[in-house]
Each structure stands twice: as structure tokens, then as C-alpha cells.
């Protein structure tokens, strides 16, 4: 089930409602800039791929890619790094969306990599850190030269300094001190063999922009983004679903709560928040009033150190 959003896409003519002024609304401006980025990559880089997690940001990204090339199909495949710790609803959603768009889906599997011995399960069982080598290996195997990611600069202090075109060396690493200057809307996608570019078309979007765009466009999202009853337990001040990969430890009580997810990642790491917001409208009201960043609220993976995100990005994380 995915919650229906009743709003039809807004007519573009809304943009020039004040005809004389030729003013583009904030969301339409962000949309236009993202479309520009998609087209630029498709024109200049040989083998792009879109990283799709099933999360709201990558779903919005897919919509923007669709708009950029319409009426043609999206001219690149979609890559999902599957940690094996997924929410069923999200995989279902992914497969449906990919079929609708007629794009190719490539899956990089963490469980397969573990079985093959190329990565090793961490003692705590979480797989966020070990998905990075799987991502890099999959990009390498298909010789992708550019990968679109749904990261936003408002998410984290390290991301606030990353370029829209983020250069990665042959190891997929980000060097924050050695970034290419990025001026106007001119992007430099030149690379040598083995190097690549991570591209972030949503760089200037905020969480609220994403939700308002979801509303404006009537975009479908996986049901776990909307308030529902779920059996959870509390750990470190966060609510985790009782999931086959994330069982309560001793002393952690199971209980039922009305929750929703603000981000969708590895099921063993992503926590839910208490919420009654079961429609996009209610979520927008909730996001507008909330006092905690979405990563701070729900991502165990960013809590390890103040520079957790920076460290993971240096290693090649998106």
C-alpha cells in the first residue's frame, strides 16, 4: 500500500501567474536546476547510473530524471545496493517503479559479497559501512563513469561542502580539500580512465522542499513513510522495528507504537519516529515544526562520531 496523494501535478502555467514578472517559484527553480544537471551528465559523461535506494530522495530524483528526458526514456540504468536488510515495502516499490519507467535495474548485493568473501559482516551486524565496497565494486564492474546520488547539502556538515559534480579518484574516494571549483551552472565532468563523478542533483533541496515537491507532483512513496502501527523497541533514544535483522537485546521491551520513517535505509540502522502523519499534508506540517534533523532523529550510522559522514564519504560512500 502506498498512501495516495490526491494532488494532480501543478500546471506549469502556475509559474508565470504574475505574467509580467516572469517569476519562477522556488520549487520550480530547484526542479529546473536539477533537470539541467541530469541533461548535462547525460550529454557529457559516457556511462551514468542512478543510485536508487527506494528512499524519498531517490524517488524524487527518478521523477526529475524522467522529466529531463521526456518523452524519451531515462537514458541510463538504475542501481540499487541491496544490503539484504530491506523493508519489503521498499523493494516492492522499487520493482514497480522501475517497470513503469522501463529502465534497467542493476542490483549490487551485500549478502552475495559476504558469501563471496569480498566483504565481511561487522560484529554489530550493521551493513551501512560494508555497502561502500559493494557499491564501488558494482560501479567498477559496469564501468560506470558517473553515479547520481540523492544526497542533499542540508543533511550534514560535510555534505554542505560537496560539489554538485563530486570528483572521485580511481578508488572512489572524495578529497574534501581538493575539490573542483564550481561556478555558475557550468559543471566540469572531465575524468581520466578509472575515475568517476558522483552527481548530486538534489544538492540545494531541503527535506521540506522534497516533501512539498512530493505533494505538488503527487508522487507515490513507499508506505513506511506514512504513520502506521508497528512493533518496535527503543535503543539509544530511537525506535527500531522488530525486524529479522534487528532483534531487541536483553532489557529492550517490544511494544506497539504509531510511527513513520523519515529516512529509509538499512533496516538494522534506520529508526522510526512517533507520528500520526498519515498523509503528505500532515508530514509537511510535521517536518515544518520538527526540531531534530532527519539524520539526527533516525540514523544510527551518523551517531558514531562528529565526522562520521565525512569519513564515510572519503571512503567512497555516496
Amino acid at each position: 500500500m502506498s498512501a495516495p496523494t490526491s494532488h494532480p501535478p501543478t500546471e506549469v502555467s502556475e509559474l508565470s501567474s504574475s505574467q509580467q514578472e516572469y517569476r519562477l517559484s522556488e520549487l520550480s527553480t530547484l526542479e529546473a536546476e536539477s533537470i539541467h544537471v541530469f541533461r548535462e551528465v547525460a550529454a557529457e559523461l559516457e556511462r551514468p547510473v542512478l543510485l536508487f535506494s527506494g528512499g524519498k530522495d531517490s524517488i524524487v530524483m527518478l521523477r526529475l530524471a524522467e522529466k529531463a528526458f521526456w518523452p524519451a526514456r531515462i537514458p541510463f540504468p538504475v542501481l540499487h545496493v541491496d544490503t539484504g536488510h530491506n523493508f519489503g515495502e521498499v523493494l516492492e516499490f522499487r520493482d514497480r517503479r522501475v517497470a513503469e519507467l522501463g529502465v534497467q535495474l542493476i542490483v549490487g548485493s551485500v549478502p552475495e559479497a559476504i558469501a563471496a568473501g569480498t566483504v565481511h559482516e561487522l560484529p554489530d551486524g550493521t551493513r551501512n559501512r560494508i555497502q561502500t565496497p559493494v557499491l564501488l565494486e558494482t560501479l567498477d564492474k559496469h564501468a560506470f563513469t558517473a553515479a547520481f546520488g540523492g544526497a542533499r547539502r542540508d543533511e550534514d556538515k560535510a555534505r554542505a561542502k560537496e560539489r554538485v559534480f563530486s570528483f572521485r579518484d580511481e578508488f572512489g574516494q572524495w578529497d574534501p580539500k581538493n575539490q573542483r571549483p564550481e561556478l555558475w551552472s557550468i559543471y566540469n565532468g572531465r575524468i581520466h580512465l578509472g575515475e568517476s563523478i558522483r552527481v548530486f542533483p538534489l544538492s540545494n533541496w531541503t527535506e521540506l522542499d522534497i516533501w512539498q515537491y512530493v505533494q505538488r507532483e503527487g508522487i507515490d512513496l513507499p508506505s513506511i513513510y506514512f504513520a502506521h502501527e508497528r512493533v518496535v523497541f527503543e535503543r539509544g533514544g530511537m525506535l527500531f522495528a522488530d525486524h529479522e535483522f534487528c532483534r531487541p537485546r536483553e532489557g529492550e521491551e517490544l511494544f506497539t507504537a504509531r510511527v513513520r520513517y523519515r529516512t529509509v535505509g538499512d533496516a538494522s540502522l534506520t529508526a522510526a519516529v512517533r507520528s500520526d502523519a498519515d498523509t503528505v499534508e500532515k508530514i509537511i506540517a510535521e517536518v515544518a515544526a520538527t526540531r531534530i534533523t532527519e539524520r539526527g532523529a533516525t540514523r544510527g550510522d551518523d551517531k558514531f562520531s562528529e565526522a562520521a559522514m565525512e569519513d564515510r564519504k572519503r571512503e567512497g560512500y555516496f
Partner: protein
Amino acid sequence: MDIPTPSAPADDVAGRAWSPREGERRRRPRGMDMLRFATAGSVDDGKSTLIGRLLFDSKSIFADQLDAVEAASARMGDDYVNLALLTDGLRAEREQGITIDVAYRYFATPRRKFIIADTPGHIQYTRNMVTGASTADLAIVLVDARKGLVEQSRRHAFIATLLRVPHLVLAVNKMDLVDYSQEVFEAIHEEFVDFAAKLDLPDLTVVPISALHGDNIVTRSVNTPWYDGPSLLHHLENVHVSSDRNLIDARFPVQYVIRPQSANVHDYRGYAGTIASGVFKPGDEIIVLPSGFSSRIASIETMDGPVAEAFPPMAVTIRLTDELDISRGDMICRPNNAPMVTQDIEAMVCWMSDKPLAPGQKLALKHTTKSVRAMVKQLRYTLDINTLHRHEATPSLGLNEIGRIVLRTTSPLFADPYRRNRHTGGFVLIDETTNVTVAAGMILDN
């Protein structure tokens, strides 16, 4: 710990009493617009405090971010919560207490969404300031009221005008440390206006503030009753930016040709791109550069339906009434209003690489959607960006230096002077060996 706020905000003399309230925060009407502004400055002049203040007062700081900053302030023994800590992104910056790179930050009020390009202010970061200013609608130059104008403030104002940022704000900060003295403020204001006479400054607003205490940031302060201008945020929310765009010269750089390989739309051929300037309508007569072929606009399309008028920065697909051979890098414009078509480029450049630029050098050049090779024919002069003195007969242009050069390109560019059109007047130079972006260029009138 406390975050200092002005003791009693003045009633809003300008008839506006927006205060960030829970619930109202960041909720915005459909169709609100966006303002990008650049700040340049070092730790000392309070730039980070000002940004922290704007984020805090607009309630764009989240509880977990504030907790982290409070904890860090307590560790460092600060009296106040150090809002500057909110903006230190990378580990090296936190360790060394410096800002290395351009950081982008976001906040919104009920009127506008804001994107801040937050750049370091020292001369060795000129390239970062240039980068931040390239997309800005407005630039804030910060001055410490105790010190008055310093070399750095002049440099920041110059860079903002070089990059044609349409609005400049001189924020005279730390007014609390000069007893909110009108005389001090007026003296700085006058000195700046004198200096700015040498620049081509489009629009200037001068505001006395205390970023630390919040004076004249959101509301006008009781501490400066002699000041009758807007608060900083009021100005940011209301400054008129839509008229800054060039709506006269129709320029559409073809970015991508859309030719669906599917049966239902197999005859479709559309030219996708972003409107650089001007307004395009179906029925318009157009010419295509470089071929010079003319045609008419059949339709302007998006996935959401046809568009009656396309203007910057809309991303659209243009279809023509005739079958022409058009590809990426070509430009669609109006027959009676064409850009320069030239292989000889006069430009101001900011050099961004350790390896200096010298005449004879060959580089890759990217301008709108067109990539060509370019040779540096001549370095006319380098500019001392503190004094604006020209040094002729300099052999090379070094990192963070600004100079005027002559380029010859392998094929023509379709360009306008940067002062008239930021989108068709700006270019970057790329080192063909390392692939690194080494310069930002602003095209001059030929």
C-alpha cells in the same frame, strides 16, 4: 547556556513584525521565491556568528545541531553558545578553527527560501569567494565597527562587483562594541561610498548590526534608534531580484537533443536546455548559431505540458517547425538580437590553480553547453584586488590572482559581455592534463 537576544526588539517601524514562531516556521506559501546570497569573511569579523544568528532566528537550526554546538561551546569554555560552530563542516576546519571551502546553507522564512554561499575571507581563498559570488543575487560584506573598512572589506566588495552580484549589503557588525554609535556607523558608511565610487556597484544597502546580540538582524533594534533602514532579514526577504535577470536577449544554449527511440514518438526531435536569458514563445522566429539557419518555434514542451512562455531559469524542450541539423553547443536566439560570435575573447579571469597561467598556454574552455580549446594569447595586466591597481608587463597570473587576458578559441563562442549576461558571459578554463578547473572567466566587451 544562553543565546543572547536583543533585550527588547523595537516595534517594527517598517510595518513588519515577523518573528519566528513555532509552527509558522519554514511554512511557506506556494510560489514563494528564492534568494541566493554570498557572505565572505573571517572568524574575526563575525561572519559565522551572523550566519548562525540568521539560522537560529529563523529557527532553521535543529535541536540536535544546537545540542552539539552547546556541548562544544561548553568544552571550549565560551560564555555564550558559539553559533559560529554551526558552520564548521570538515574535521580540519574544526581542528584548526578555520573555514576552508565554500559551504552552502539553507534557511527559509515565510517569505523566501535562502541559500547562503558561505566562503572564507582571506586572500588565499579568493577563488572560493569568486565561486560563491558566481551564483549570488546578493553579497554581504561584513565590517567590524571597531576597525572600519579594512583591505579585506574592499576586496570582498570588489569581487562581488567583478562577478556582477546585483545587490550588495555592507553589514557594520559589532555595533555593541562601539556603543551603537551613529558617528562610527556614518563614518564607515561614507568611507565605503567613497571607495565604491571606483566600482560599478549596482545597489548598496548599509545596516548597523550586532550578530552576537541580534541587533537589526530580524527586527530593528532599540539600540540604534537613529537608524531608519530595514533590518538585515527584512532586506533579504524583500530585495527585488526577479528584475535582475536579463529578459531581453533571448539565448537558448542547446544542451541535449531528445530523440526517443520508441515507436509511439519516433519522429520526435526536441532541443532540451535551460533558458539562459530572454523570453521564448511558440511562433517566435529564431536563428540557430553557428549555422545561421532560421526557423520558427513550433512548441515549447515539458513533461507537465506545453509552455506558453519560457524564461530563465526554466528547463524546457524547444521544437522547431523545420528539420535542422542542430546539436549540443549550438545556440538558439532571435534573428535581430544575436550574441557575439567570436574566437577572440577578452576576459577578466580569476586564476585558481597553483601552477600559474602564462601566455602561450593551451586549455580547455567550457562556456554554456559548449566545450572548445583555447590558447592564452596575451596577459594584459594583473589586478591588485586590494588597491585596484593594474600591473602591466607581468609574466604570469598566480593562484587567486585576477587579471585580464586575451584568448583565441578553436571554434567560435556565442557570447555576451558578462556585465550584460552572467549566463552567456561566464566560462571556466580546465587544465587538459589534470582535468581540474583552473580559472573562472568573465567576458568583456570586444
